[in-house]
């Protein structure tokens, strides 16, 4: 036990310094990519175990596939600053090459599927994507991809920054609270096409009011509509 605890403690203590170091490294792209083994043991193994078997600080990884590993790393949800911290989308820690190196190092001890998918947005059909999105995704991610707060205090993230590959990885692997969806490659292409469309939808009719729905419309009607009307009423009427 002591043999395990010593390097663990060392790693935890050393992490802040390394974090600083590695983010500087990521910005200097010319440097050679460190090996996946090095990155995994430095940043992941501390909590998830040397071969993904899990520790009291982090979950077992042997049942998840490369798609989920890649999704979690590319959306910046891992590594977290400290064990147990909430996994939120942020600037990813690793470059694409570093991510590939980590996933390749993990392949022998994690599940083989779902693998990192190949997505062809151009082959997707936006109309099919819209239909699938509204049927399968909107219940949590909202009709305009703004995300939402769900019962059980689950937060469903907005999709504005999702890349096609991340969309496909999430659909196939169901990260965090998301369920796994069994959809064909064509269907995934179409959904990705529609989610990309939702970044800048054809918003006719003026300012989109942040796509929050009728609640904002009501607020605008009261503040701007009624506000303007009351000002004019006070102007043409007396105030005594």
């Amino acid at each position, binding site marked *: 036990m002591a043999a395990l605890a010593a390097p663990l403690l060392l790693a935890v203590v050393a992490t802040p310094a390394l974090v600083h170091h590695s983010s500087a490294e990521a910005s200097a792209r010319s440097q050679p990519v460190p090996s996946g083994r090095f990155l995994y043991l430095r940043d992941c193994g501390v909590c998830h175990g040397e071969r993904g078997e899990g520790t009291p600080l982090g979950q077992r990884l042997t049942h998840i596939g490369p798609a989920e590993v890649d999704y979690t790393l590319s959306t910046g949800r891992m590594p977290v600053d400290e064990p147990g911290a909430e996994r939120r989308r942020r600037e990813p820690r690793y470059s694409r090459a570093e991510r590939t190196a980590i996933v390749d190092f993990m392949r022998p001890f994690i599940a083989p599927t779902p693998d990192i998918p190949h997505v062809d947005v151009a082959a997707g059909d936006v*109309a099919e994507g819209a239909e699938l999105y509204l049927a399968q995704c909107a*219940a949590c991610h909202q009709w305009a991809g703004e995300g939402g707060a769900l019962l059980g205090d689950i937060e469903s993230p907005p999709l504005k920054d999702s890349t096609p590959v991340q969309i496909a990885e999430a659909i196939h692997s169901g990260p965090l609270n998301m369920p796994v969806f069994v959809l064909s490659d064509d269907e995934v292409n179409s959904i990705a096409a529609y989610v990309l469309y939702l970044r800048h939808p054809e918003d006719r009719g003026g300012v989109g*009011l942040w796509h929050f729905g009728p609640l904002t*419309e009501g607020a605008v009607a009261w503040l701007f509509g009624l506000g303007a*009307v*009351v000002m004019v009423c006070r102007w*043409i009427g007396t105030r005594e």
Partner: protein
Amino acid sequence: MPAVTVPSDEHNEPERRPPKQRRMPHRLGRWMDARLGTTKFGRSALNKVFPDHWSFILGEVAMYCLVVLILTGVFLTFFFDASTEEVVYEGSYEPLRGVHMTAAYRSVVQLSWDIRAGLVMRQIHHWAALLFAATVVVHLCRVFFTGAFRRPREINWIVGVTLLVLVVANGFTGYSLPDDLLSGTGLHIAYAVILSIPFLGPWMAFLLFGGEFPAEEIISRLYVMHILLIPASIMGLLGAHLAILWRQKHTQFPGARRRENNVVGSYLWPSYAAKSLGLFFFVGAVLAALGGLAQINPVWLYGPFRPDIVTTAAQPDWYVGWLEGALRLFPAWEPSAFGMTLPNAFFPGALLPGVTFGLLYAWPFVEARVTGDRQEHHLLDRARDRPVRTAIGAAVLSFYLVLTLAGGQDIIAQKLNLSISGVVWTLRGLLVVLPLGVALLTHHVCKDLAGAERLEHEKEEAKRLLLGGEGAGPGHHAATTN
């Protein structure tokens, strides 16, 4: 400055040939008068006096919203197809091309994308509906807080509350017509609420929907309600509202030369009519600006309704938002007795609006009974002079404000990064605590204001006595009638 017009007896004078041929309108007027006696009525109508206080104009704004609603609504009827027949969309909005939908939804998307001025008309119509309901509520608040509902105006209060119910009903039927994802979800909730009414629920739901949800006939039935039954009722009752107002004359705030038996203000013709016309144009301009600049109800993004689909960030329009909020806040409580269960949705969905409007209808009579004041009143109360009524009104408004916010509790949780159960419990707490706090605070402020004023008045009185004042203030330009 309106001069007092002295009624002349011109038309009673013996027949006398005019030196010159009179103009056409004049001759037509005389022709009409000979048959209908219009001159006398017209003269008294044009000399009708309207109070000038700004808060009296709010009801008029509501009326002009109704005019805009009718004008834009007629345009929309030319293009809306009230049918649930399944069709395939082939219009110019690409993300829906080839999608199966109802003819109703397709016609609204077409209206928005392929018909010239269709979208701006739809948006003006929808904004006008939101503003209409808002001005009706604010107008009701004015009448409530100034005690304008007291004898002899209880009937017009009842007519007004009925108008509010009809405005909400017509808003909801209109919101439901496009058959998009949100409107279908709203209808689904309405169906469930109607079903929850004990004994009568299932009968009523089937009577209204013509079958189990989603029944095929519902859109065409809602359409008839939305463009014929409810608007006709609104216009009929509005006519009654105005006729009663005309008969009973306006109320007014107490003030210089204002008594219980007169009305101080401007003549209808020309000053009030000119102001009013200007107001109409301004209301039209505000609605056109909103309709042209701010997107409302982008149904093409919501997608067509399917009973098996829901989306987050789904709320109704604000005037139904308090009911949605009540449904979201009400605890999961389903009492059972005598082998029957009262469904959860009954309390927030059916009982709450019943109690809300029931109390609104009953208020003038409840207040008269409690205060024992059964006198006629034509001079208004100022809110501060009736602290209890004002406190109750403010508390009730805060209660419904919390409910309305609860209608978007998921948005609040998401945007403020809070847990949804935390938001729900906070709002539940606020629903109880806030009205109490608001009532106490309002009562206190009213008392303070009235007290400060009394003190001010006494000071002035003392000053006048000491200095031997000359009472006459500057002349007040206003017309009066008895």
